[in-house]
């Protein structure tokens, strides 16, 4: 799995590429923006090929650490396979999910602005 990080204003955009499973989940759990409670993160999942429940747990765990559980982690661009894992487990209820990253960043920026 590869993680690349960019920023858009106060928002960190963390792109995950490859497979998010028990082998790779620690890398996401230890990402500095993910573990920063005050940092709002857009997780770009466009190049995430595969995710199991351990990977899902890492994303929920990231949300758990945020001061703002409503928009601390915002998701974008997941493929059908990854989306199915969110849907089967009902975990999609915990997140705002967007089909494109720009919309996710705009949402996160607006929410963060409204909160400060």
């Amino acid at each position, binding site marked *: 799995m590869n993680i690349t990080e960019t920023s858009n204003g106060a928002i960190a955009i963390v792109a995950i590429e490859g*497979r998010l*499973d*028990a*082998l790779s989940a620690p890398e996401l759990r230890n990402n500095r923006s993910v573990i920063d409670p005050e940092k709002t993160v857009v997780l770009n999942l466009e190049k995430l090929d*595969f995710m*199991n*429940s*351990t990977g*899902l*747990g*890492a994303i*929920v*765990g990231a*949300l*758990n650490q945020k001061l703002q*559980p409503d928009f601390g982690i915002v998701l974008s661009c997941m493929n*059908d*396979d990854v989306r*199915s*894992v969110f849907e*089967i*487990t*009902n*975990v999609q*209820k*915990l997140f705002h999910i967007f089909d494109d990253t720009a919309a996710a960043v705009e949402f996160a920026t607006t929410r963060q602005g409204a909160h400060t």
Partner: protein
Amino acid sequence: MSSIITLTLPGEIMFARLASQTASSLADLVIGENREESAKRKFCHAFELAVSEAVTNSVTHAEEFDAPQMLTVTFEFEPRQLTVSVRDANPPFSIDKSAPDIESYPVHGFGLKIIREIMDQFTYRRDGDANIITMSKSL
């Protein structure tokens, strides 16, 4: 007539990935060329995900009980069905636990729910000192 392929793997997390990727490749081989691409993709992903969940569970529990050991993953091809069994030597466990409450922001406990949802058949049995999970999906 059926064909059987068996993997014997060390109970380490890196081999859970190997097992799931093998499952995906085997599913792709047996699903046939005549299916729609989206149906093929869905079948292969379901099989890969189910094996990933079962083997990850096995390996995680082996590490939890400090019992590094081998586990066996057996794939059986039948004309209309693909079956996989995961056998380990961990302590017995219950498959009757309900899925975690979403509102508690759970970080684990979804594996069996996923398997039940995406596979056509799922059984668990205890055979001597071994756990055996068997999962099937119709082609």
